[in-house]
């Protein structure tokens, strides 16, 4: 009996180790993601000394085939209220437009800005648009090791951009628990050095558990000691969102 148990345990361990980095990330990617989302995000920008600035944004996003659209409207602070940011990804192309109410002008912005800070936070525009998930086909994934956190097996996977892929980071390492396959923590590296750490502090089920969505995230810049806490509020999932939301007309409407 003891032999049988030992054999079963060894078998399960070897099966667990048999999973590859690619397979882990495929399972992460296989999570059903909502076709549309609408909600408010509150960002707290926390300085090294603990001083806090708060930003509030309203976000609409929609996926349809190979097209992804996202509109962000800034609600607070007052001096940036009304600013709107639109991204439309389709067929490997990404369009970015910004509406500045002070100038009353919608302007196409440089794609190079997507690597820059989003509203002074530790998230880049790229990070915000990738919150729904990494495009796993653009990366090679290697399982570095497995860890045990609170009795849950956690896969540690390193993802490196494939040659020719324009990525903000030289590599990312994700901690993926085997029970949910929603990454708990992601380390972002630039030129091989640890740059930022994203921690999913809270993951909530939506649509009767169909979706598992991080609702409280923390991004820490390890080089500056600065961090940003992002909280998703009144999140509505799979609500019908008119395509008219993702237009210049809606950007200009307050």
């Amino acid at each position, binding site marked *: 009996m003891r032999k049988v148990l030992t054999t079963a345990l060894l078998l399960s361990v070897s099966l667990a180790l048999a999973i590859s980095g690619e397979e882990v990330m495929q399972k992460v990617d296989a999570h059903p993601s909502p076709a549309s989302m609408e909600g408010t995000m509150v960002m707290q920008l926390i300085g090294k000394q603990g001083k806090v600035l708060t930003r509030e944004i309203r976000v609409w996003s929609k996926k349809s085939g190979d097209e992804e659209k996202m509109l962000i409207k800034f609600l607070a602070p007052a001096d940036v209220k009304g600013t709107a940011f639109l991204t439309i990804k389709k067929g490997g192309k990404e369009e970015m437009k910004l509406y500045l109410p002070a100038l*009353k002008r919608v302007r*196409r912005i440089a794609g190079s800005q997507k690597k820059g800070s989003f509203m002074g936070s530790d998230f880049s525009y790229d990070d915000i648009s990738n919150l729904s998930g990494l495009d796993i086909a653009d990366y090679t994934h290697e399982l570095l090791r497995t860890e045990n956190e609170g009795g849950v097996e956690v896969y540690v996977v390193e993802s490196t951009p494939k040659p020719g892929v324009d990525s903000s980071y030289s590599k990312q390492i994700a901690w993926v628990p085997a029970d949910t396959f929603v990454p708990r923590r992601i380390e972002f590296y630039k030129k091989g050095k640890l740059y930022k750490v994203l921690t999913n502090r809270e993951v909530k089920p939506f649509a009767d558990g169909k979706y598992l969505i991080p609702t409280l995230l923390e991004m820490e810049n390890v080089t500056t000691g600065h961090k940003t806490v992002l909280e998703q509020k009144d999140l509505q999932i799979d609500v019908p969102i008119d395509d008219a939301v993702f237009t210049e007309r809606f950007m200009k409407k307050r």
Partner: protein
Amino acid sequence: MKRTRLFTLLLALTAALALAQPEFSGSFQTGFGLRTQDLALALDRTRFDLGVRYDLADAAFTGELRFAYDALTRTPEFTLGEAYATLFLPSVDLSAGREVVAWGRLDLLSPLDVLNPRDLSRPLDQAKLPVGMVHATAYPDAEGRYQLEAVWIPLFTPSKPPAGAWAPPQTLPPGVTQVRVEEPPAELSSGTFGLRATASLDVLEGLDLGGQVVYGYFPFPSPQGVEPVDPAQPAGPFRLVLGYDRRTLVGADFALAFSIPDVAEGLVLRGEAAYALTADPDGADPNVQNPYAEGGLALEYAWSGGPTTVLVYDLRWAKADAPAADVWTQTLGLMARYEYDERLTLQGAWLHTISDGSGLVRPGLEYAFADGVTGRLSAAFFYGADATRFGVWRNNGELRTELEYSF
């Protein structure tokens, strides 16, 4: 009976506005500036802006009031800013009232952005002046890729020229002792009309195209001739008559997002070109403004971990009165903005007129003390010879500090 109707109307209006839940916003700003030449106080002002917006199902009302106090001249000033109502129809936005409209794609020098007059009384703080207009924007396709705009400004409002220390030196012709400015009559035929069409196309990483025509006036008056001050004394003294000439401005613009593989990813190139037709195409009549053309290009790039920069080039041609040679002006500009962290932003602008060697350098920084509380430090330095474009303000350089609370 009349009182009852009025009361009912007021009650209905109050109820509608209360249901609409007005949204107030505004800012309180105070600041002062020192002239770089002698560190004398050149600016000491306080400003309070209050905005209100009512949003109904398919309509909105926007209104702005400004109270400003200039401590140098001890002048208080109340001004009405934008105040307009918008109807959101199925594929048309229709607004009427005092409004500011932005046309064209360039920020620093925009030859197409001519609908609103400008307040240039202090050129460092130049702003567009809202004017009464009817403004319609049509969105013929669901994706919003195409837009057609039409604007009608029934009454002419001139721009405010540089004033005080900023006013250029004026010399009147011999025998002329006075100046009379004649504005276009307040009638429908004196209106300004504008049409603009834009399209967003799927070319490279995105291409926006625009074309427009504006039938209006030059923003500043020009000499129209001289006349005796007293018609009974035709031999003089005389006065100079200044008037506003008509112009038809046609133009086109674009914004193109692209990358240069292995060199630079994610650039944006913007451009504008305008041609102004006037009643004197050959420069034969010295009392009528001549045609001009202006084109500009701006290249924007965000450097990794560094600033976002915009490099600008502008070329202007103006037909001179015969037999003088036409005037060509080339301007180079550079703008940079760097968000050091969530609180501190560094920015700067440099404009240089290649044709006359004059220019302006404007560094500045912005610091967020708390949510909605911003402090600014900035400077402006002019250089160039006396009679040049920027050199004329060589003694008006300024060091400035401002504090603003927005709510």
